[in-house]
């Protein structure tokens, strides 16, 4: 892509790609859910089986079942999904892997799963947990897992792990527990934070295996190991790459997937995937930046050409290289080696992804492009009439390009579902080569970016690169959401200029333009804040009036929610009146009052009407021409939604109409009352009810 391409278009593409990868992740999650169900069903005939038989190729079977339980597929996705599924029948490697083997592996995964909420109460307890610990579900539910499962002497360690998981980390390690009879034994546990659909932390998911499954001495306290493992196996990504990114990748992934306590296994796996993905995602980002420089160098194909991101690349993927080296076979998600069931998943994937591994070893990347271009992102772009900027003439020659592939299996398998899995490996392993070759044909930073994302977009992992789309998911996933996404990285934050109803407002620069950035209160985005953010954005994006503050876009990344608006240099009317330096003549004051009335009149004549509910001089902003604009819709409501509005946030008492102060219904006329107070301010230049001094003027 040319450097001159409008950022909006880049964004659109990126977001769409990220969405695509998210779908893949979801599907994979669905598969794992099915796996878990099958495990619990034991050997009895599973209703899933006929479906899998129909799929006839072993590997994509989980795709099929996954698709069955995949509820949110858009028509576009379904369509492309069906296409991919159809192609799955040609699979070769699938033959190595029968349903029975698959089931056997699943049967070996005897995990106990329990979930406890933030109050430390168990809210989910599966049958394996019953077997492992001896407590029935009814006995365990509502109890504190540390109380019933952990010996007193280990409690502090357990609490520490829980605390760290509560802050978004996952933990995998060995731990001494006790069963109902009080017998101590050692288990291998993966603990992951659990998020609801909105990304709020709701609890911790524990997936537990008796250590005896892995090592003989059952009952060994494993005390010495415990300490080490506890420290060392905290998800590496959390401390390394994720922190570099400044994001909580797990949150992103998990929340995006809409996981609930019924899907505990996915979460653990999600965290693993997210580890990988955030690395890839980050890499992609850094490539975007560095791509320009690298483009020329990469053409040479020398290893050094990675320049700035080389180091990062090494760091991010070192794990996998090690794994590959030690395991002999390539493990698409080497991380799983660490986790109890990773072993099984690994063997699963080893079989199915072998061809890809080979390709990654031998590849100069040629095969990557056509293969990944079958992704839905491509389809979407075709529909949208967009083309990969770097593709050029390859576009019409997509089919032809495929047949040029050196490896026959690529042709056979390029549409196989399994590619999602293996590509993650592929992209990791062969990324340098693959991207280089793409680079050679593109030579543009954006092209590099698209292609590498595209490579990854078919993999399970890359979806976590979609950090921004995940919160968008939480925030507002309607399609026009794409239109207003602003990247935090594109904003330069300056001085604080105000405090809004639920965030701090900063003066910022966005591509050289002055903007005001309302940053919603930091850290954990509670459901409440996300809701108010969503509300404000969905409301503001509809407003277009010269006397209403211009909404420009929103930052919707996991670590930040911001609303970006135009910046009005004279600040708020409140400050203007209080500063008292500028003598406002009467005509100006009347003009200002008229501006406000016009803005409010517009709001009240929207269909449905919008009630501001927090109209006051500090929410009125003045531009350099003395035009006044109505701002801060944090408390505003669309009328029909909430006639009785006062429960959902309060305005500022001095400006509030008597009926609002009495907690009665508010309507347009409550805004009129507030306007009257503003008229009073305009003539007196005083703070209303200041003498009473009883107010908490927090919101100035």
């Amino acid at each position, binding site marked *: 892509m040319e450097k001159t391409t409008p950022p909006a278009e880049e964004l659109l593409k990126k977001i769409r790609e990220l969405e695509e990868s998210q779908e893949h992740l979801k599907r994979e999650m669905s598969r794992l859910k099915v796996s878990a169900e099958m495990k619990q069903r034991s050997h009895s005939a599973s209703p899933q089986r006929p479906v899998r038989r129909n799929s006839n190729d072993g590997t994509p079977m989980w795709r099929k079942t996954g698709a069955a339980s995949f509820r949110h597929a858009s028509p576009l996705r379904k369509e492309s999904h069906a296409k991919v599924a159809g192609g799955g029948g040609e699979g070769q490697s699938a033959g190595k892997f029968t349903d029975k083997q698959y089931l056997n592996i699943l049967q070996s995964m005897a995990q106990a799963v329990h979930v406890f909420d933030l109050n430390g109460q168990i809210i989910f307890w599966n049958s394996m947990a019953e077997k492992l610990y001896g407590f029935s579900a009814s006995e365990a539910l509502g109890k504190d897992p540390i109380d019933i499962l952990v010996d007193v002497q280990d409690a502090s360690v357990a609490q520490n792990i829980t605390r760290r998981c509560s802050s978004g980390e996952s933990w995998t390690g060995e731990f001494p527990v006790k069963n109902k009879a009080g017998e101590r034994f050692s288990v291998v546990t993966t603990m992951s934070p659990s998020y609801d659909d909105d990304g709020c932390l709701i609890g911790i998911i524990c997936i537990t295996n008796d250590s005896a499954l892995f090592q003989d001495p059952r009952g060994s306290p494993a005390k010495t190991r415990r300490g080490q493992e506890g420290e060392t196996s905290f998800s590496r990504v959390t401390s390394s790459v994720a922190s570099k990114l400044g994001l909580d990748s797990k949150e992103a992934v998990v929340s995006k997937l809409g996981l609930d306590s019924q899907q505990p296994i996915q979460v653990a796996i999600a965290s693993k995937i997210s580890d990988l993905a955030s690395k890839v995602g980050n890499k992609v980002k850094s490539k975007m930046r560095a791509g320009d420089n690298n483009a020329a160098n990469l053409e040479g194909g020398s290893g050094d050409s990675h320049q700035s991101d080389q180091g990062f690349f090494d760091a991010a993927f070192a794990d996998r290289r090690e794994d590959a080296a030690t395991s002999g076979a390539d493990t698409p998600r080497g991380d799983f080696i660490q986790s109890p069931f990773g072993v099984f998943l690994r063997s699963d994937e080893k079989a199915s992804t072998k061809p890809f591994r080979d390709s990654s070893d031998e590849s100069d990347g040629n095969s990557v492009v056509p293969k990944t271009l079958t992704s839905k992102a491509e389809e979407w772009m075709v529909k949208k009439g967009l083309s990969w900027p770097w593709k050029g003439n390859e576009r019409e020659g997509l089919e032809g390009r495929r047949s040029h592939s050196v490896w026959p299996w690529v042709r056979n398998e390029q549409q196989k579902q399994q590619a999602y899995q293996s590509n993650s490996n592929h992209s990791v392993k062969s990324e340098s080569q693959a991207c280089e070759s793409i680079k050679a044909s593109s030579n543009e930073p954006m092209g590099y970016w698209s292609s590498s994302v595209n490579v990854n977009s078919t993999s399970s992992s890359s979806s976590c690169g979609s950090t921004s789309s995940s919160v968008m998911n939480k925030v507002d996933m309607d399609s026009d959401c794409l239109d207003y996404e602003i990247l935090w990285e594109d904003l330069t934050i300056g001085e604080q200029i105000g405090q809004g109803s639920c965030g701090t407002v900063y003066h910022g620069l966005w591509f050289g333009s002055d903007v005001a950035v309302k940053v919603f209160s930091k850290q954990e985005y509670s459901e409440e804040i996300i809701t108010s953010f969503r509300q404000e954005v969905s409301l503001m994006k509809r407003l277009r009036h010269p006397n209403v503050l211009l909404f420009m876009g929103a930052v919707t990344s996991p670590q930040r929610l911001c609303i970006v608006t135009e910046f009005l240099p004279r600040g708020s009317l409140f400050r203007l009146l209080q500063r008292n330096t500028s003598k406002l003549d009467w*005509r100006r004051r009347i003009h200002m009052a008229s501006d406000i*009335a016009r803005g409010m*009149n517009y709001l009240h004549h929207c269909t449905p009407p919008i009630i501001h509910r927090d109209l006051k001089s500090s929410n009125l902003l003045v531009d350099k021409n003395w035009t006044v604009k109505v701002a801060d819709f944090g408390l505003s409501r669309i009328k029909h939604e909430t006639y009785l509005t006062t429960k959902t946030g309060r305005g500022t008492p001095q400006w509030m109409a008597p009926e609002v*102060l009495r907690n009665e219904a508010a309507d347009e*006329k409550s*805004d*009129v009352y507030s306007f*009257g107070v503003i008229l009073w301010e305009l003539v007196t230049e005083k703070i209303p009810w200041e003498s009473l001094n009883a107010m908490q003027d927090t919101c100035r």
Partner: protein
Amino acid sequence: MIGAVGFMNQRLEVPKNVDPQWISLMESCWHSEPQDRPSFQEIMEKLRELQRKYTIQFQAARAASIENSALKEK
């Protein structure tokens, strides 16, 4: 204040030297019965009247000052 405004129907004190038109507009906005308050449409009209009045006054004042200065020069 919450009690005073919400339940005792008190309102902000209006300075005496303010244009009575402005005062009546303010007070109409503060009517205790919401339905008796004007709509913003009506407010806009009132403000337009005020604006016109002040513009005329301003022009008159300016004309007067020009006249004055012209007189002084003579």
